[in-house]
């Protein structure tokens, strides 16, 4: 699979925060998730990938093109959904849409207004009067209405109720299902995006600390609950995020396949239980591991 976006050594220096040396290869047709705690630099990274801010160092190439020479062409094919929507607040939804539409080569007004109707976003309303969810839905409709091949979203479901969240996730799922369409999304885990992400990347403190295919990650990481004493010490030493409770202990296994043999006896005796790790467990383990 060709990479639809390649970042090499991307960095951004701010007064109190730095994004270091980010290198990514995002396969075309994938749903690429970037997760991390607040302040990790997710928004900065999304803005750099969509060239909403200039980078301090490194390069980004999208569709094999560089922003320096082909910014207009690239942005025609990218839909960016910001966390903080920034449109002409005093003007109506319709005005903002028409304004944006005039720049795109492949604007599909029909699709856009159908989406607005489905999302129940009124056309005549002043933009500033929209609720947070409606603003996000507007941004999403805009991003989906000009034939974009790549969507870059920054925490699209943050602060939204479950129904809106489901609506957005469904839209993204349908979009990404087409082979040539790619989605890059930054989010907190527990915002639901982890369900549709195919690749998970953990950003912490401005650095990419982990990159994996989600299915593979969930196969390798498990949480085990065990009776104190049921596991040999060398196995316990390999666990992370160990918690000792009065009636059970638990820990995260980083590579289940490797430890399986050592765990089998305990499992057979009913003194060890294995369950799937949750992505936020893994993220926290990464975070504490530094």
């Amino acid at each position, binding site marked *: 699979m060709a990479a639809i976006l390649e970042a090499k050594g991307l960095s951004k220096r701010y007064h109190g925060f730095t994004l270091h040396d980010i290198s990514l290869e995002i396969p075309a047709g994938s749903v690429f998730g970037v997760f991390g705690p607040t302040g990790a630099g997710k928004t900065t990274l999304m803005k750099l990938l*969509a*060239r*909403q*801010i*200039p980078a301090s160092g490194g390069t980004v190439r999208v569709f094999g093109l560089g922003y320096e020479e082909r*910014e*207009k*062409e*690239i*942005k*025609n094919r990218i839909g*960016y959904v*910001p966390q903080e929507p*920034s*449109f*002409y607040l*005093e003007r109506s939804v319709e005005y*903002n849409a028409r*304004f*944006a539409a*005039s*720049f*795109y*080569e492949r604007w599909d007004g029909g699709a856009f207004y159908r989406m607005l109707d489905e999302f129940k976003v009124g056309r005549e309303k002043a933009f500033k009067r929209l609720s947070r969810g409606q603003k996000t839905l507007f941004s999403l409709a805009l991003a989906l209405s000009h034939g974009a091949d790549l969507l870059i979203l920054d925490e699209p479901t943050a602060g939204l109720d479950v129904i809106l969240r489901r609506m957005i996730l469904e839209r993204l799922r349908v979009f990404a299902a087409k082979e040539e369409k790619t989605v890059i999304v930054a989010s907190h885990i527990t915002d639901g995006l982890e369900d549709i992400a195919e690749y998970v990347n953990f950003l912490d403190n401005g650095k990419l600390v982990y990159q994996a295919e989600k299915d593979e990650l969930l196969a390798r990481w498990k949480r085990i609950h065990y009776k104190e004493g049921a596991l040999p010490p060398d196995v316990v030493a390999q666990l992370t995020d160990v918690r000792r409770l009065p009636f059970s202990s638990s820990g995260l296994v980083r590579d289940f396949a490797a430890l399986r043999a050592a765990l089998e006896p305990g499992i057979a005796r009913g003194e060890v239980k294995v369950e799937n790790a949750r992505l936020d467990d893994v993220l926290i383990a990464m975070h504490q591991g530094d």
Partner: protein
Amino acid sequence: MSAILRKSSFFYISHLCTFVLPPLYMLAEPRNRSVLAVMALWIPVWLSSSVLWSERQESYTFLRMLPVTDRRIVRTKFGLVLGFAIVYWLVVSLFIRAAWGSTPQYAGYMALTTLACAAALVLAGGWLIVSWRFGQSVLTAAVMAFVVTGILSTWFVDVKRRVRGGGIWGITPDWLAEAPWFYHVLLFAAALAAFYGLMRIAIRIKTRSEA
């Protein structure tokens, strides 16, 4: 791109409308020409204010999402400023011609007008750079300060006394009355060159800015 032009030009147009009202009134009252005398000095004030208002309602974050380069945005805004600087020059020239067309002070007033437009042009270019380099709040403070100073100065500067047969006392050469076109073209060319230079700087600054 023309969407940017349309949106930004609203404030320039409305400013121009307010600009022409007093002199239109003055023309109707031939006895009182005092306001017309200082019209030229107001051009930089009006143009600077247009830039400020236009910048305040702009959303570059929105524009950055759209397929339009910083280069194009800068060129559009600079083009708009240039266009209106010329419009102000034409408008004021017409008023001056109507009021003093056949008098010896005509050359002087025209010289003043061209100088004011040249200054307004370069200043406006500077304001755009300030906006993109330092942000809206700095721009607002700076332009407000300038506007206040500009309006106050028209009280203190006695234009009528300074404008005499040849040109403007202390600023323009005496031979202006005989070869006015040379002066106008030279000043316009110099202003245009400076303006173009500012535009090049502005493109570099806008590309690096996050505003």
